[in-house]
């Protein structure tokens, strides 16, 4: 570690990992409710568990992004962070707001939470993934602005690299598109149309810039490949991302009351969306092949390659499976959508966090060459447990989606009702839950790798 202010990243990473454990735990609760409908009812109804699950996911990724940024920006800019104190304050404010919001979901009925937080003054609650009380949303804006100010000043005053400029572009985009969360028109179609400005343009737009920048940073560090080369790849990947991803928002505009030209435009643009992820695989593997140094932290490179492959599978392949309008007509809003969502989020955004954490955490803990071989062996085990768990879970949800489409959507006469169809899928949901448990076991194994003692140390 070259700059002491990089240390502010540590609590961000640790908190992100703790939230990840909570996120998976609530996933398991829902996985059980899919099998036994009255599990934990009325204490934790499904919708509450789901809010906690998805909101924890978003918040933990934001914490991870912030930690990654605080770690890599000083090193790239070749100067200390503009204000380490502000970074610490940002952490505590965000953590407190996040915890308070989650506790609000769990212990107060949602309608009461809306009342207490005076949602009626500026109603923004009750939309998927944007369930946070308006006051929390305002808090998020303030936190993100303070964060961007801190990072922006550091970048401006220091050396500007392609990585930091791309990262900052992604972060500013994240902040700008979040503002659409405050626009809730009476017309449901308009509401949905601009809701995707937050959700899609985050996940399939600006977040990919952040992902590309973090991946590039780690690849430079562990392969020693020439920066010119890395920069070129990064530009190509994010070019493909934005060219396909922005107009690709159209694949959400097929069946929500928007004009029918989106059927064509959305299908064509989003058919290109796997391309940047495919480039990312070529990128990670060819950088690994051309490496000039053999870094002792093997796991960081393993996670980097894993991110590229799993993001391509989850976002690219599983996205493409149902992105063409004639297919989406039958699969829209089924378990197939859930399958894609799970593998894409894990492959792209959870694995990139493991990549940067696996690289940076040992350094911040005084091990510049990475953890010892024993700890890395445990970590490799956790890598495969989580990857296999997520692949199995996704495969199960995909099978569930196919059954749902064939029983409920395809038949013109004699289609089963939603609830009757779900009864037919219960055995598949059991397989899904089993793989979900494997993922959590994998995460605990990962945690354990932090505490493995090396004999020589």
């Amino acid at each position, binding site marked *: 570690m070259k700059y002491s202010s990089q240390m502010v990243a540590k609590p961000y990473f640790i908190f992100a990992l703790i939230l990840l454990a909570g996120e998976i735990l609530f996933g398991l609760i829902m996985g059980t409710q899919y099998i036994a409908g009255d599990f934990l009812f009325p204490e934790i109804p*499904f919708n509450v568990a789901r809010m906690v699950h998805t909101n924890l996911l978003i918040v933990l990724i934001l914490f991870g992004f912030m930690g990654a940024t605080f770690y890599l920006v000083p090193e790239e800019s070749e100067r200390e962070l503009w204000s380490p104190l502000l970074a610490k304050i940002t952490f505590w404010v965000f953590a407190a707001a996040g915890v308070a919001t989650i506790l609000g979901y769990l212990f107060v009925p949602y309608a009461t939470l809306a009342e207490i937080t005076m*949602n009626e003054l500026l109603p923004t*609650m*009750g939309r998927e993934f944007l369930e946070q009380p308006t006051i929390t949303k305002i808090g998020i804006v303030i936190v993100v602005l303070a964060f961007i100010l801190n990072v922006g000043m550091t970048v401006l005053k220091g050396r500007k690299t392609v990585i930091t400029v791309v990262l900052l572009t992604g972060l500013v985009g994240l902040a700008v598109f979040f503002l659409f969360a405050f626009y809730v028109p009476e017309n449901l*179609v308009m509401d949905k149309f601009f809701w995707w400005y937050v959700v899609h343009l985050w996940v399939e737009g600006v977040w990919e810039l952040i992902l590309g920048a973090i991946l590039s940073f780690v690849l430079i560090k562990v392969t020693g490949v020439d920066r010119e080369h890395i920069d070129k790849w990064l530009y190509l990947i*994010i070019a493909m991302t*934005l*060219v396909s991803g*922005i107009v690709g928002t159209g694949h959400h505009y097929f069946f929500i009351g928007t004009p029918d030209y989106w059927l064509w435009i959305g299908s064509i643009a989003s058919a290109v969306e796997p391309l940047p992820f495919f480039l990312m695989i070529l990128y990670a593997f060819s950088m690994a092949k051309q490496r000039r140094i053999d870094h002792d932290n093997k796991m960081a490179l393993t996670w980097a390659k894993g991110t590229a492959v799993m993001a391509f599978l989850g976002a690219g392949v599983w996205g493409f499976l149902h992105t063409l309008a004639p297919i989406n007509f039958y699969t829209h809003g089924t378990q197939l959508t859930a399958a894609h969502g799970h593998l894409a989020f894990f492959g792209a955004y959870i694995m990139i966090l493991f990549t940067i954490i696996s690289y940076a955490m040992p350094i911040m803990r005084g091990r510049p060459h990475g953890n010892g071989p024993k700890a890395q062996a445990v970590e490799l085990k956790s890598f495969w447990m989580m990857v296999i768990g997520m692949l199995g879970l996704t495969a199960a949800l995909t099978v569930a989606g196919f059954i749902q489409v064939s029983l409920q959507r395809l038949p013109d006469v004699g289609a089963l009702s939603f609830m009757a169809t779900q009864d037919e899928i219960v055995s598949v949901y059991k397989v899904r839950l089993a793989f979900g448990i494997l993922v959590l076991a994998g995460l605990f194994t990962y945690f354990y790798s932090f505490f493995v003692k090396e004999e020589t140390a």
Partner: protein
Amino acid sequence: MTERITKNMARNIYFGGSIFAILVFVGLTFDTVQQVPKLSNDDKITESVARGKNLWEVNNCVGCHTIMGEGAYYAPELANVFDRRGMKNEVAFKAFLQGWMAAQPLQEPGRRKMPQFNLSESQVNDIADFLIWTSRIDDNEWPPNIEG
């Protein structure tokens, strides 16, 4: 393949491509915003429909149900529940919804549970009006059949 592309070329592709994509998307957004009022019968959004949408939100209905295919996949699609459970008859649908909401949670062991939201009669009617309005949106003939 990347040997022939220089860093400058890659940067130009990034800036040029992104600006082009943004322009296309902004243009289509303007056109969509023009067309949505007609496709969604914006003039039919009464105060009751608007109140119904707000109730839909503050009770987090989308945490279990889908509406036009978006939401959670734990409970049935509701954009066409007026067609499915109300047989496109407004009086019948409202009567059905009053009974349905009052009966929750159903006492069937093992069945997925819908919470009791303790809504007033007029609130349930507002939700019904919102769902009736939603069912008439031109959403390219989705879903494929009545089961949603």
